[in-house]
């Protein structure tokens, strides 16, 4: 999907990816029957999103006679203000918004993440919604471009506020979750808010922040969900009760969780810090210092929900009869590789920032 240069191709591959995801989420029904309902909701919402997207692509085709992205990028601005194109724009943004779980179209995500098998959640968190973010970038910046009449208003008055609400609302809800997988799912919605926020500035730094956070978030959430997967494997679930005393029971797993959590919060020397730093810089560059403050403030919410787990794991004794026992190395080693990547790219971010920066410049060059 990601390398295609054709709008309809993108739809077909988005659907292949989504169909596999629906089934994979449903496989969680072996542990909990509610996974079936979660997968069904995901299927319905995902299909509505895909339908909206394809309606938009259809309208684009009607007005331009082409599906090739480069060709579209030339022909769409040439047409200028046109109500059919505006509707195409709206359908594509809404459809992809559903796919990427943009607040308030995120309701399918927490259940899908929470009830999917742990291995599937790792992949979902690290990839699924990211593909939709990427497609949104391609369509917004490459095809419609900054000169499109509804481009600026959508970004400033729709995407930016929704992203900020997502950052706060989802992170606040995350604090009150009992199931830690669900908590991280809500946190993902908040993190998607950061990505959309970076996008909504429509500057090189903002887009760099979005693109780098795509990668960085995959690293941190991948690591966190893998650590949780180890807990689920041992205890059958990952509620806050299960986490009690785990710092002593599964020291390596929990250490990985803490490291991933720090990265999520945005501690220096982790990838999370790089993302937040770029995002704050982008906000300041655009003269939106209140947004920069909000980014930092929402990180404090992440501190709270990660701290809850840390408190349970390290400051409470394990329940009676639970003996120390680590997850198998087959699970621990990949988790720690991801944690290593979190720290490596947090210390030496030159590679990731360069690639993301080039991508951002490429997107904006075609857009202007």
């Amino acid at each position, binding site marked *: 999907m990601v390398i295609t240069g054709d709008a*309809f191709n993108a739809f077909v591959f988005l659907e292949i990816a989504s169909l596999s995801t629906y089934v994979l989420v449903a496989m969680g029904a072996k542990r909990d029957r509610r996974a079936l309902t979660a997968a069904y909701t995901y299927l319905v919402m995902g299909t509505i999103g895909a339908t909206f997207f394809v309606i938009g692509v259809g309208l684009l085709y009607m007005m331009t006679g082409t599906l090739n992205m480069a060709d579209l990028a030339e022909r769409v601005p040439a047409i200028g203000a046109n109500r059919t194109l505006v509707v195409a724009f709206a359908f594509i943004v809404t459809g992809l918004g559903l796919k990427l779980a943009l607040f308030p179209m995120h309701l399918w995500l927490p259940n899908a993440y929470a009830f999917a098998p742990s291995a599937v959640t790792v992949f979902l968190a690290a990839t699924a919604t990211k593909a939709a973010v990427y497609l949104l970038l391609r369509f917004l910046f490459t095809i419609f471009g900054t000169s499109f009449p509804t481009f600026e208003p959508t970004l400033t008055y729709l995407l930016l506020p929704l992203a900020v609400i997502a950052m706060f609302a989802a992170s606040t809800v995350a604090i009150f979750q009992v199931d830690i997988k669900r908590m991280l799912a809500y946190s993902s919605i908040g993190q998607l808010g950061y990505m959309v926020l970076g996008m909504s500035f429509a500057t090189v730094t903002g887009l760099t922040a979005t693109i780098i956070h795509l990668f960085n978030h995959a690293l941190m959430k991948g690591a966190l969900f893998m650590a949780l997967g180890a807990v689920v494997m041992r205890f059958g679930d990952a509620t806050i009760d299960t986490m009690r005393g785990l710092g002593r029971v599964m020291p390596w797993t929990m250490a990985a969780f803490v490291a991933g959590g720090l990265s999520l919060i945005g501690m220096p020397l982790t990838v999370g810090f790089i993302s937040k730093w770029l995002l704050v810089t982008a906000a300041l560059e655009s003269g939106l210092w209140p947004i920069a403050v909000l980014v930092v403030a929402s990180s404090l919410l992440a501190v709270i929900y990660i701290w809850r787990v840390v408190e349970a794991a390290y400051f409470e004794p394990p329940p009676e009869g639970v003996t120390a026992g680590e997850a198998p190395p087959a699970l621990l080693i990949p988790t720690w590789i991801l944690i290593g990547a979190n720290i490596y790219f947090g210390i030496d971010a030159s590679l990731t920032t360069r690639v993301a920066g080039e991508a951002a410049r490429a997107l904006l060059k075609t857009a202007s």
Partner: protein
Amino acid sequence: MSIEAIINIALFVFLGLTAFAILKLRALFAVVMLSAVFSLVSAALLVHLDAVDVAFTEAAVGAGISTVLMLATLALTSRHEKAPTRSQALPLIVVFLTGFALVYGTLDMPRFGDPQAPIQVHVAPKYIADTQSEIGIPNIVTAVLASYRGFDTLGEVTVIFTAGIGVLLLLAAFIREPEGLRVQTMDHHLVLRVVTKVLIGPILLFALYVQFHADYGPGGGFQAGIIFASAFIIYALVFGLENARKAVPGRAVRLLVACGVLLYGGVGFVSFLFGKNYLNYSVLGADQVAGQHLGILLVEFGVGLTVAAVMVSTFYAFSGQNPPIGDEDW
């Protein structure tokens, strides 16, 4: 008012009424039947728009196979929809907003059938002008589907493949086949038995015709695969699943599901080996046109294979469960 407009309006009124009835009814058997009607009316509309290939697919998929699969689902679950527990105000608002946006979007559209519309003057003329010399088949739709936009079609076959294995995975994982399956056949109905026997042969033949005549007339792998599968499904419905499985074992069907996609993808790779782009069939034959002919034939066959196999194996998986609703309860 022209007769065209009257037909269009009548069909759209039918479509609207059917959709409204589907919304309102709680009896799911009637809903399934009405959605088949909906597909059939849509197919009629598409015929009227001269999109016969699409109409063909809509009729075969919407009115045909999906109705059978929906009925199979009903047999496993329930025939009555529960009353909704949540407020329906928000969905209604969303639906109206979407409808409003769609209508608003029509305001700047080129007029219906306008020869100067962008869609008619950009890429389409190239297809119309070049199909004869580059591909050499009369049906331009098939040329676009299987050759010019062959990569999309490969993706679509993969969609069907993915959906198929998804359904199989789900049904196999969560519903165990009951011991001592109650064999349900309808071969005690004399009329059904005789009619089925008479029909199956022509249906299979027609499927092959649709499959291999796609270069000249409407049709292709998607439609043919479904027609082919429906012959098997009719057989299984009347003479029992066991007999159908004897004719075509479930394992073989599941193998064919993958074979079709592999054939399609494999044809693409062959053109790699000749140093050309993926899915460029020109290298397959002595000259370009011969190569394109062979390539389209092969990939369409791949499509038909996967579609038919997915349908049959999905049906096997569904009807392999013991239905709580007996033959007489319907």
